[in-house]
């Protein structure tokens, strides 16, 4: 028998080390990555271009002569740079991402593939309309789905995100009031629990914002609403299901009171995910509502966009929808891009071109995949998952509204942390060490130390259990006085807590070639 008796050890040796640090300051495969401007060079490039025979004589002194200051990378360097950076991000593809109000659900890759078909991705917005009939048909079908799912007669597709949709809705409302010669309406009512975009949008459109109170059980205070409605109110902006994760039980009455006062009902549709396929906002008396395609209809959040925020409109507001409109004509579909003809009352234009086509394709692929039955199941599972999380955690944490079911989000306050010396922020940061993204914190503003958990329908029961067990273990540690685990957290993330005060006091918003005021990472072994 011949034996190869020189081999590598195949069992780990027992070595005791409390804390191990590498020699170069990195964490194993997770290495620090310098800034593009530190690793790149002005003369390096990752593209091969044949040099042009440049004659810029007719441009004269318009030609840029000084160096721009860009850094370049070859292709392999670029791939490394960005892949290394990517590894410092958390993502929905890695774990449950419980950001309430943000709807971090699975992003199907089929949607990505469809959006990249040359027949959609390689279309110019202004090429002849006869050459884009399929694209217009897709927009028209998406509009049909959105109108059917919301029970509303019209939709403006062009807004580019939720807040842009809010702006679109309020501009339509303003146009409707103005068309009747009613210029006296200067106020918009919105609950204290509203998303920040609601009052910001109202102010952007020139309205004054008045807050409406909230009842003990987390809903709009009808009496307060009735008292504040009047001939100077243009609209109310109410989120439903609301930002406490609750359905506004009195929504029909809210709409009735609003209309009685001559105002319109703008519904923030950020939480449409909870009711899609089951409840139509049109049946509730809503006049305008934006739909975040990047929430309910699964288009990726992309680290902060792009989103898409089509706005459905009631009969009263439909004719004021902004250009462009899709019009059915004798020669097929047509875009009316000006306020004329069918679109004569359009209040204007929200942006150049026709909206977020790339997002339309993704959302439409998602809708076709689910169908009417699947979308209803989406809402049911989203609500079921949130109630399950609430049920599992309520023994250890304090639900802000314990009575009755929640919708797609479970909201907790920080009563249960009293006396521990640990804040909502500390608790959330400790979740990072357990492998989860923190939930939405300190929002809505009406709940002290709010923790808003939205699991979404794309989480399995096993992942929900893993998440709940992590939070229960943390809650136990908090109550047992293991304060350091929270105060210093996160310990196991790419970085520890960051100094936001320094960033705001001495803003450094771009890289500069001179030595940085902030010392680079120390490369020493402790």
């Amino acid at each position, binding site marked *: 028998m011949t034996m190869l008796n020189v081999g590598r050890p195949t069992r780990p040796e027992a070595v005791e080390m409390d804390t191990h640090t590498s020699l170069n300051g990195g964490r194993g495969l997770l290495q620090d990555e310098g800034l*593009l401007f530190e690793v790149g060079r002005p003369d390096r*490039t*990752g*593209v091969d271009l044949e*040099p*042009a*025979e440049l004659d810029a004589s*007719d*441009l004269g002194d*318009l030609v*840029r002569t*000084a160096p*721009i*200051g860009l*850094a370049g*990378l070859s292709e392999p360097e670029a791939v490394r740079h*960005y892949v290394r*950076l990517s590894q*410092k*991000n958390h*993502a929905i593809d890695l774990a449950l991402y419980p950001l309430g109000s*943000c709807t971090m659900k*699975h992003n199907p890759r089929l949607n990505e593939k469809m959006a*990249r*078909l040359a*027949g959609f991705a390689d*279309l110019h917005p202004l*090429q002849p309309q006869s050459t884009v009939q399929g*694209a217009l048909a*897709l927009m028209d079908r998406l509009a049909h789905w959105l109108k*059917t*799912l919301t029970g509303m007669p019209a939709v403006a597709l062009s807004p580019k*995100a939720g*807040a842009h949709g809010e702006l679109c809705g309020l501009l339509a409302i303003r146009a409707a009031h103005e068309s009747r010669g009613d210029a006296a309406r200067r106020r918009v009512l919105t609950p204290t629990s509203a998303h920040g975009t609601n009052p910001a949008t109202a*102010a952007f*459109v020139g309205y004054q914002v008045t807050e409406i109170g909230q009842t003990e059980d987390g809903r709009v205070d009808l009496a307060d609403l009735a008292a504040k409605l009047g001939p100077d109110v243009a609209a109310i902006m109410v989120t439903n299901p609301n930002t406490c994760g609750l359905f506004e*039980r009195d929504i029909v009455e809210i709409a009735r009171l609003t209309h009685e006062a001559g105002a319109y009902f703008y519904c923030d549709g950020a939480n449409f995910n909870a009711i899609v396929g089951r*409840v139509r906002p049109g049946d509730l008396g809503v006049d305008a509502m934006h739909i975040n395609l990047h929430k309910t209809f699964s288009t990726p*959040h*992309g*680290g*902060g*966009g*792009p*989103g898409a925020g089509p706005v459905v409109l009631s009969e009263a507001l439909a004719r004021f929808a902004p*250009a462009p409109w899709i019009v059915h004509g004798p020669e097929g579909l047509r875009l009316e891009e000006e306020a004329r003809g069918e679109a004569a009352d359009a209040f204007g234009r929200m942006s150049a*071109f026709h909206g*977020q*086509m*790339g997002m339309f394709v993704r959302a439409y692929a998602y809708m076709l*995949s689910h169908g009417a039955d699947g979308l209803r*199941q989406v809402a049911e599972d989203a609500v079921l998952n949130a109630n399950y999380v609430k049920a599992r955690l309520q023994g250890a944490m304090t639900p802000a509204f314990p009575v009755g*079911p929640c919708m797609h989000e479970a909201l907790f306050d920080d009563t249960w942390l009293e006396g521990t010396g640990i804040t909502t922020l500390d608790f959330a940061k400790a979740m990072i060490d357990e492998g989860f993204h923190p939930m939405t914190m300190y929002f809505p503003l009406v709940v002290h130390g709010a923790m808003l958990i939205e699991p979404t329908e794309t989480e399995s*029961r096993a992942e929900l259990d893993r998440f709940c067990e992590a939070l229960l273990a943390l809650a136990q540690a908090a109550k047992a006085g293991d304060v350091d685990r929270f105060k210093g957290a996160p310990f196991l993330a*790419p*970085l520890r807590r*960051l100094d936001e005060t*320094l960033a705001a006091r001495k803003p450094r*918003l771009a890289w500069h070639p001179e030595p940085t005021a902030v*010392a680079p990472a120390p490369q020493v072994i402790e």
Partner: protein
Amino acid sequence: MRYLPLTPADRSEMLAVIGAASIDELFADVPQAARHVDLFDLPLHAGEIEVERELARLAARNRPGGAGPFFCGAGAYRHHVPATVDHLIQRSEFLTSYTPYQPEIAQGTLQVLFEFQTQVAVLTGLQVANASMYDGSTACAEAVMMAQRVTRRKGAVLSGGLHPHYAATTRTIAHAEGMDINCLPAAIDAEAAVIAAIGPDTACVVVQTPNVFGVATDVTAIGEAAHAAGALLVVVTTEAVSFGLLKSPGEMGADIAVAEGQSIGVGLNFGGPYVGLFAAREALVRQMPGRLCGETVDADGRRGFVLTLSTREQHIRREKATSNICTNSGLCALAFSIHMSLLGEAGLRGLAEINHSLARELKAALETVPGVEVLSPRFFNELAVRTPVPAEVLVESLLADGIVAGVPFARLDPTAGLDDVLLIAVTETVTSEDIAELAGALKRRIAA
């Protein structure tokens, strides 16, 4: 359903944990009349194969830019995007992450934004840039409102060379805020009329270069006149590749520069999503809209990045915010930044030179077409030409030759009386053969 992991058994066990008898109990707060028992009148779920078939069918009814000679510009440009860009932006950690509000686990996105801001700042020749806007047109509207906050004046003068969609967007949004927007008439040399329109209540003048007619202009004198009157200069650029060849807005005295970044990394996408670039002089930073990423240190003293100066934003300032913007165009900003890193200084300059050279070739070719007059005296990669028949008719007729000849100006502004103006753009994706084919087809169609 392939995207929904719960099984019927899971659902009933979970309901038991919750203590609810049925799913309907969880929807108890919905008014009875609004609870739909039946499914809505829409198709039922479909597998990947069926969805692909349906969408491929729709896609096939469109004529992609790459199907033949293609000359559309007017605010969206068909540039080549390296394969690496699309691969990298589809990394899970970039594609499926949220806005980086938890900086400890979002340094990837944050560092990219810091690098993006730096790239935009140097390209525009200004000191600070934000982490992106929705697109160039909305960035333009935001710039005008920012000028109102800075100067506390109500008026704005928009050059007739500004893209008509940008002007319409700005008018719609800024008018709602009570601003008085003076849109000057569209003209090839519209910049000449701008200075005379500046008044004591002018918050800013907005000029585009190269303008919507492709005309590149030195706007330094306009900036000086604006500053002398206490107004700001906003410079708009819709073709970001031009930054590689032309003087930057900052060099010409811009206080705010906005641009459409689609040309770099993003692709046409039938008009969206795109990425708005927004930069300003340092002194104006606290009036800027949108997210800003800044450098700082972590608890161990290591360099890191955070979103900063957030008190300007809607989630803190609410009705006093500088803008209502929340979601921006993060992934498109990433695509822009990756493509710009692949180009680098040398690559961007080279790319810009190729574009300009092709435009000169285009001009020479068009000058051989009887009846066609090139109107743009100084240009980057786009020309306005006068056509002997309405431009729209000409474009439609050239479709039969397999050529998309450009954008009729009347498509952007049907009221300007410029029905005979055609905008023709070239990029590195256009070949000399394409240009020759265009000139040949124009000759035949005009003669016919």
